[in-house]
């Protein structure tokens, strides 16, 4: 793929030690220990309510009631927040797209916050996700699957080493799912790190480890 030329040359690691989140005094899941280096990927598994989303949000530093340590390149993410966030792309259940802006405006905005403007890259990314013809369509008028594709296009427009994707397959059709798996493989080959949850089986990502939440 043409736009895929940014290698993550330096080796990155994310290390999660004894991470757990409590609601009230009750921990939602047993403490999680995990270490991922460049090229590693893991799927978090668990039944509904097992805390998959909560775990991912805690890793991103979005949970205030967490216990444990998350380190990015051996530095705590809570002490070196901006250093971690510059390398992180988190896509959750809320896609973070402004319904009143077009697909292109949304992607341009997020790209602009971290990188320089590159309008042709944004168009290319939308093209790849299969909604190239809708770049100037307002997100409000798109279907759930199209919105998901716009949000996922950010993995191309913002080439960062750590991807945390919460249920990225939701609302995607078969072609979309195959595209996502291919993009993830490319990402891992280039030295990226991937954490993902999914209820659909993911068969196409090479070397995907599994973590069962209890």
């Amino acid at each position, binding site marked *: 793929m043409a736009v895929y030329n940014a290698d993550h040359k330096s080796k990155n690691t994310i290390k999660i030690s004894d991470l757990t989140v409590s609601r009230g005094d009750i921990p939602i899941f047993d403490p999680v220990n995990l270490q991922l280096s460049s090229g590693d990927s893991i799927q978090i598994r668990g039944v509904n309510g097992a805390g998959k989303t909560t775990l991912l949000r805690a890793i991103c530093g979005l949970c*205030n009631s967490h216990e444990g340590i998350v380190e990015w390149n051996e530095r705590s993410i809570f002490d070196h927040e901006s250093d971690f966030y510059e390398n*992180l792309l988190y896509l*959750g259940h*809320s*896609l*973070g797209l*402004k319904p*009143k*802006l077009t697909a292109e405006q949304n992607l341009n905005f*997020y790209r602009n916050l971290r990188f320089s403007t590159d309008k042709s890259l944004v168009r290319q990314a939308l093209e790849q996700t299969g909604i190239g013809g809708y770049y100037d369509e307002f997100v409000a008028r798109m279907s759930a699957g199209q919105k998901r594709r716009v949000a996922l296009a950010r993995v191309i427009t913002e080439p960062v080493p750590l991807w945390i994707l919460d249920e990225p397959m939701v609302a995607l059709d078969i072609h979309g799912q195959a595209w996502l798996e291919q993009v993830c493989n490319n990402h891992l080959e280039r030295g990226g790190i991937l954490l993902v949850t999914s209820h659909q089986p993911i068969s196409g990502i090479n070397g995907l480890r599994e973590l069962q939440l209890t």
Partner: protein
Amino acid sequence: MKKIGSLVSRELSVVFRSQSEFIYPVAFFVMVTTMFPLAVSPEPTQLAFIAPGVIWVASLLSLLLSLHAFYQADFDDGSLEQLLLSGVSGYSIVLSKVVANWIVTGLPLVLVAPVIGILLNLDTHANLVAMLALLLGTPSLCFIGAIGMSLTLGLRNGGVLLTLLVLPLFIPILIFGAATVEAASMGRPYIGQVAVLAAALILSGFFAPFAASAAMKISID
């Protein structure tokens, strides 16, 4: 700085897509202020007497109305967490929201106020001073409102709680804002009140973004 620029321009382009966001507060301001001649008395000297208070109370309430649109939508569609995770500091996020909020709501109020002033029989001098007072006071209100809004994000009935939290904090601005206009309309010196308004703006502008971004991080959990 570039980031704040692109944050502000995004806020503005979202708001300008739906004109209601910036027409409603101004329309509310005009409606409320025109109620007073009908309810109190149409007598010109009486009107001039109540004008400073009416203008300030109405602008305070219409600013309160506008706050919701700038924070709640971003919270609901997940933009706020994406912003916090994109390496932009919470301080810049709040600052850009306040700037956009003021451009969309505060600035129109400053521009409309003299018209209402004429309607309420304020003389030209007092009218200009009222504009100055609003110019200094409304940004402080936006900054203080940002703290309240960040604390009540995602709460049910957050609007009522917001009002209860924020209105008491608006009181100092209200007192000195209305006092400025009153002093000017009576021909007394008003420089002291203006200085207090300016000081309040500097204080709230510096400290409020810290408080609001901390509150935002708690609300997003």
